[in-house]
């Protein structure tokens, strides 16, 4: 809202001045006074007099009246008709589209000045003619913007939903489509008004617009040009008025567009440089395990408009060679943030504030970007959920695999291509030599994911992190990819972290599992144990929510709390049917109940023993 004030006030002031011109007691803008020709500032004329001795201030304000009314009238006429054309053309397509949108293209073929000349010749100059010319000129802009927006809106689910409700077409267009295309149309309106002011001035300057002696900014510039050397200030005033009006109009319409959109977030709070410099001051302890990756007490903080949040808090994970650790959790559990932080791929607003990630004797969290870059794609690699957006669409997949190889190995180009072909064969791409030369869009989702895996294993990584690699794929293709990853792990002995929200997938692929909820690990252990004897109420609830077998799935009431509203005590307590007052008092530790089995619940023992008794 704040963005609206200043430009809004300026525009309001300009419009107010123009509207009130007759009652401001200004001197007559057309009365000539040859004696005071080109006079400087004087009593009653603060900005001086022009080449006919007319008062400049008065002409400026009366001129605004002409310029603005022409500009607004033409922009609004063009806006209404053009938007209607665009709506009809975009919604009905076919003949409607030809009549409304395609016909506009003809107007675009005329140079604006030529069109103006033609109309003025036929109708004679004057404000009415100007409005007609300008509205015709701006019509195509509105029609095309609306048309494009309608085309994208008509395929949206919520438009189809209103159709399914049986709404008549008129209602759909006015109530559903129009408000959603209003943003770009408003911007177009601001541009049209601003450029109409300019064009009006230009045409008047050429003698095609407003007829002298009526005041207009264009005519003032035209008059001042002749006496530019004697009185340069005369040129300045109308130009300043023009610039100020246009700038204020554009800013106002930007603000309006944001204001009419309920999704615009609240104003953003700046975060301090100190926050970025703080991490890394804690002394590091030496790694003690043989794990490929050993994450200890990782806490990630993100500066957001609502203040700092900690989407990951005190997470400890370890993955050994030849082992698959599944990290499972719902959206908002922090599983992806953990992985991307370990890889050093988080944006700068997110930073690890506590903890370590030991990888081959080095703490990944304290490494500089060039060192991390040497590791990424080399000893540690990652496969993402969406292979389409992870592959570069303008290069062949072969070139991208070769690039990945050459980034970490000093091999010749032909050697790298040979390696790439072998990799494609390894990940089960038929006809690898030919497939190396295709572009990502020519491949199916499953094939693209195979390419991503080929790139990830190109430099024989010790650690492979897979972030929901099969979520976007069909089940039959998912099965292929899971089998492939399992084989690769067995063959190469790499450690694998597999992030997923599907418990079924965990059961198929992983040796151990870490269950995450609201930024914390709540339970960890071998898959067989955790799934057959879950200790944490959340794990149990999650397992009961899986639709398998004859029992109807049990939902967990409530939702995952957002990071800025994490409860103080157990974070699952508000949704847990076993929660007691003690659960909500203080943060709970992750209790190590035996080797490789941890749970974060103060009642786990009690709950399991009552169950055993019953």
């Amino acid at each position, binding site marked *: 809202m704040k963005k609206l004030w200043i430009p809004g006030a300026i525009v309001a002031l300009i419009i107010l001045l123009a509207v009130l011109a007759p009652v401001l007691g200004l001197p007559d803008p057309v009365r000539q006074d040859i004696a005071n020709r080109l006079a400087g500032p004087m009593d009653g004329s603060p900005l001086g007099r022009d080449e006919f001795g007319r008062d400049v201030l008065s002409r400026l304000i009366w001129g605004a009246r002409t310029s603005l009314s022409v500009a607004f009238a033409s922009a609004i006429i063009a806006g209404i008709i053009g938007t209607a054309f665009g709506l009809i053309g975009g919604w009905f397509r076919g003949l409607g589209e030809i009549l409304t949108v395609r016909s506009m293209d003809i107007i675009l073929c005329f140079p604006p000045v030529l069109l103006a000349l033609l109309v003025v010749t036929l109708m004679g100059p004057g404000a009415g003619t100007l409005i007609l010319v300008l509205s015709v000129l701006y019509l195509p802009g509105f029609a095309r913007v609306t048309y494009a927006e309608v085309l994208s809106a008509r395929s949206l689910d919520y438009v189809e939903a209103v159709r*399914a409700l*049986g709404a008549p077409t008129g209602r759909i267009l006015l109530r559903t489509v129009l*408000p*959603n295309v209003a943003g770009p149309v408003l911007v177009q309106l601001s541009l049209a008004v601003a450029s109409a002011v300019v064009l009006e001035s230009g045409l008047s300057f050429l003698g095609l617009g407003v007829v002298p002696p009526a005041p207009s900014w264009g005519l003032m510039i035209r008059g001042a040009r002749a006496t530019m050397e004697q009185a340069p200030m005369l040129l300045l005033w109308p130009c300043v008025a023009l610039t100020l009006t246009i700038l204020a109009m554009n800013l106002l319409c930007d603000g309006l567009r944001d204001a009419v959109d309920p999704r615009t977030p609240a104003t953003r709070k700046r975060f301090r440089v100190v926050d970025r410099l703080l991490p890394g001051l804690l002394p590091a302890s030496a790694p003690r395990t043989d794990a490929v990756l050993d994450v200890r007490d990782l806490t990630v903080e993100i500066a957001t408009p609502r203040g700092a949040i900690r989407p990951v808090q005190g997470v400890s994970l370890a993955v050994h060679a030849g082992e698959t650790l599944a990290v499972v959790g719902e959206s908002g559990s922090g599983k992806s943030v953990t992985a991307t932080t370990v890889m050093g791929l988080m944006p700068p607003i997110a930073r690890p504030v506590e903890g370590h990630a030991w990888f081959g004797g080095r703490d990944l969290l304290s490494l500089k970007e060039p060192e991390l870059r040497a590791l990424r794609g080399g000893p540690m690699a990652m496969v993402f959920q969406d292979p389409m957006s992870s592959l570069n669409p303008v290069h062949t997949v072969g070139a991208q695999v070769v690039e990945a190889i050459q980034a970490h190995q000093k091999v010749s180009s032909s050697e790298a291509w040979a390696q790439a072909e072998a990799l494609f064969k390894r990940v089960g791409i*038929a006809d690898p030599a030919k497939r190396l030369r295709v572009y990502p869009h020519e491949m199916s989702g499953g094939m693209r994911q195979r390419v991503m895996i080929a790139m990830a294993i190109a430099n024989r990584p010790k650690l492979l992190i897979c972030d929901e690699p099969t979520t976007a794929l*069909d089940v039959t293709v998912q099965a292929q990819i899971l089998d492939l990853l399992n084989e690769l792990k067995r063959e190469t002995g790499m450690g694998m972290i597999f992030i997923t929200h599907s418990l079924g997938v965990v059961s198929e692929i992983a040796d151990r599992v870490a269950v995450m909820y609201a930024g914390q690990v709540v339970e960890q252990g071998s898959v067989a144990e955790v*799934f057959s004897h879950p200790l944490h109420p959340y794990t149990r609830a999650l397992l009961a929510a899986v639709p*398998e077998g004859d029992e109807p799935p049990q939902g967990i009431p409530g939702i995952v709390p957002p990071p800025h509203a994490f409860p103080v005590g157990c974070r699952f307590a508000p949704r847990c049917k076993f929660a007691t007052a003690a659960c909500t008092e203080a943060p709970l530790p992750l209790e190590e109940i035996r080797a490789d089995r941890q749970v974060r619940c103060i009642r786990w023992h009690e709950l399991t023993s009552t169950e055993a008794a019953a």
Partner: protein
Amino acid sequence: MNAPLIEAVGLSKTFPGKGLFRKGKPVQAVKHIDATVARGEAVGVVGESGSGKSTLGRMMLGLIPLTEGSVRFDGAPMEKASATEWRRLRRRMQIVFQDPYGSLDPRRRVGDQIADGMKIHGLFNAAQREQRVAELLNKVGLDPTHAQRFPHEFSGGQRQRIGIARALSTGPEFLVADEPVSALDVSIQAQVIQLLGELRRDLGLAMLFISHDLPVVANLCDRVIVMYLGRVMEEGPAKHIFAHPVHPYTRALLSATPMLDPEKRSKRILLQGDPPSPSNPPSGCVFRTRCAHARDACAQAIPELRPFGDGTARVACIRAEEIS
């Protein structure tokens, strides 16, 4: 079994091909499909992307025109309905979408969106409508005060509930649910499945439940239709088909579905490659290019969907007896 509420016979849909310089090949999204849903019955449609399951659902609602075939709703053919009759029909059938983010108008309060259907059909006065919006929100497990909020203030699961409330606002008899839970988290997914099950029981809704998730369908639906490349591979009682799949595609699909319980896992039948393009389907049986049991005969003729075994299920495979 009740008389069918909605009855589709011989539905086909062909989308014209797209191309920049020459016309592309037309895409056969759905080919000769029969489907019926009785009052209070839930029919699942399963298949992978490109199987035509969403197209089938939209055709049964009359949201996209049919290339071939006919749909009868409550005994009357829908394609013969006049504009006024259509408006009345619209009240009686509704849809719930997959994407909880795209299916609500971001610029309007959810209460207004739920009231839309009632307003369009001139049901109730303003005060009654408000009352009913509150009831509907309550029914789907949301707070009535939420009517004043905008969609972006809700989580995915909550938005899905709002979408369901909107669909229920006109008191429909037939509901198409197009992958209503696949964009949701497991715990939320179960909530929505529970809700749909309750609504079906309480309101006697007929439901066409489109999904790629077999366990969900097995749990919620009475009958199931398995689709591949626009054709029905197998259909019958859901529990029966999941326990004893006959068609090689149904078996492969079941074996590929990740199961929690290692004992429930059947031996993985790995399908090779990806489904062929619907614009260029194989001759004969459309599944034969990925089928381990395919013979030359499979390429000759399109297998007929025929009763199998005790006749409760129907299957489109010429080798069904041999391989089962």
